């Protein structure tokens, strides 16, 4: 690996700081490094639990090249496993489906329960013999990945040694305690994916700040004016923005979505948009919430999986469609600027850019976290 730039400048006070150097957006070895330090060692978003609504549902998912699957067990728990058979390493689940009984490996038919236990090893001791003294099934269950469901999102900690989810996320869980309740996914039209030709961190950075609203989202700015926004910053954990003038979506007869019940009064007009480090962007409103899960594909490619949630199972379909449409428009408006920033990072000697000391605080908060974590990670290694 070529010599990496020092990150000291990123950690300076915002008025003096530069942003992360180019290599954090373009270089594959830094991408790998950040994968371990920022994604695997933390609680990362993987999927939404609504993708496996019924007992026995399984969906295979790759995360950073690692084959995983999510499953809803017989006990109605969401679990995440490595999608690799403990026998010869065959992929177990190749497509989303519903498991009635056991997960049978398509190769030699070793069978696993939905909670990962190896329950049968056909012919392992020779034809017609399922037992062999060397094969201790109790030690050959599927490799489980630590997971936790919150705000409809399945979060995973691949390194296995992050603090407990509730401890890692305590401040945000406290802040949004009002929304810690069942969220109802709006269904097929309430989820969509946007592919962006940019590093995943640029999607986080753009999401954090409201500075770009007047220029990039003129339609949003008509009701969501810059001066009605406030910063949200919690060092090394999350950052984003809030607005004090959220207006509910209405149809022509004035119908709106039902509210989440018993919210604090501030939510009558407030909405908050927070990037939960590393890769989940959340938004909450009195009547709906959304989650954007950023799945980095390569240094310069990211998939944004967007999901909208409501306060009840049955909400008017035409409103849901309209809401999806509206958000899709907003997120699409962000694509050219996020991709443009990516392109800009191929300028030789670009210094990472500067920050508005007043408008860019949540973005700098994220940069600080990245720089700090990467530096600590490098120190641990050397």
């Amino acid at each position, binding site marked *: 690996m070529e010599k990496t730039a020092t990150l000291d400048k990123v950690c300076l006070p915002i008025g003096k700081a530069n942003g992360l150097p180019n290599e954090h957006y373009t270089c594959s070895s830094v991408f790998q490094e950040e994968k371990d330090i920022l994604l695997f060692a933390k609680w990362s978003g993987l999927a939404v639990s609504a993708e496996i609504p019924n007992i026995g549902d399984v969906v295979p998912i790759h995360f950073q090249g690692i084959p995983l699957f999510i499953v809803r067990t017989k006990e109605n728990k969401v679990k995440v496993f490595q999608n690799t058979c403990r026998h010869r390493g065959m992929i177990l689940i190749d497509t989303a489906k519903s498991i*009635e*009984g056991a997960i049978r490996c398509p190769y030699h038919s070793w069978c696993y329960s939905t909670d990962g236990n190896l329950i*049968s090893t*056909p*012919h392992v001791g020779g*034809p*017609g013999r*399922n037992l062999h003294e060397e094969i201790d099934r109790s030690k050959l269950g599927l490799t489980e990945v630590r997971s936790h469901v919150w705000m409809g999102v399945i979060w995973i900690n691949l390194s296995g040694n992050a603090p407990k989810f509730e401890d890692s996320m305590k401040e945000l869980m406290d802040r949004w305690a009002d929304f810690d309740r069942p969220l109802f996914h709006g269904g097929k039209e309430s989820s969509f994916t946007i592919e962006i030709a940019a590093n995943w961190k640029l999607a986080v950075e753009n999401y954090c700040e409201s500075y770009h609203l007047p220029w990039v989202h003129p339609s949003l700015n008509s009701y969501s004016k810059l001066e009605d926004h406030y910063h949200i910053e919690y060092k090394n954990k999350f950052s984003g923005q809030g607005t004090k003038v959220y207006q509910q979506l209405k149809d022509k007869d004035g119908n709106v979505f039902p509210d989440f019940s018993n919210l604090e009064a501030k939510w009558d007009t407030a909405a908050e948009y927070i990037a939960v480090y590393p890769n989940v962007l959340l938004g909450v409103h009195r009547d709906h919430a959304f989650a954007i899960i950023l799945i980095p594909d390569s240094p310069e490619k990211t998939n944004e999986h967007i999901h909208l949630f409501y306060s009840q199972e049955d909400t008017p379909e035409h409103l849901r469609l309209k809401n999806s449409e509206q958000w899709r428009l907003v997120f699409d408006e962000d694509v050219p600027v996020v991709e443009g920033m990516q392109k800009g990072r191929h300028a030789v000697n670009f210094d990472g850019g500067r920050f508005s000391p007043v408008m860019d605080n949540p973005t700098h908060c994220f940069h600080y976290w990245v720089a700090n974590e990467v530096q600590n990670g490098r120190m641990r290694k050397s």
Partner: protein
Amino acid sequence: MDACGNPDEDLEKKILVAHQNNDGLKLAELYAEAAYNSPNKNKACFFMVNAYTLALEYKHPKTQSFFQFLKKHDREN
């Protein structure tokens, strides 16, 4: 069933068809039938392993009795 304990042609054909149709429940039943019909203990257990495996996968109501068959012969525990 022939003298070696293999299923007769008719059953064998049915097993192949069920394999082709991916009909796991049916297949479990046919393998169990082959097991019950076989006079040869090893062959019977071989078929029953297949029956039991598919029964586990597709949650066949007879899963437990297939298991007991194997357990009785020390092939499962």
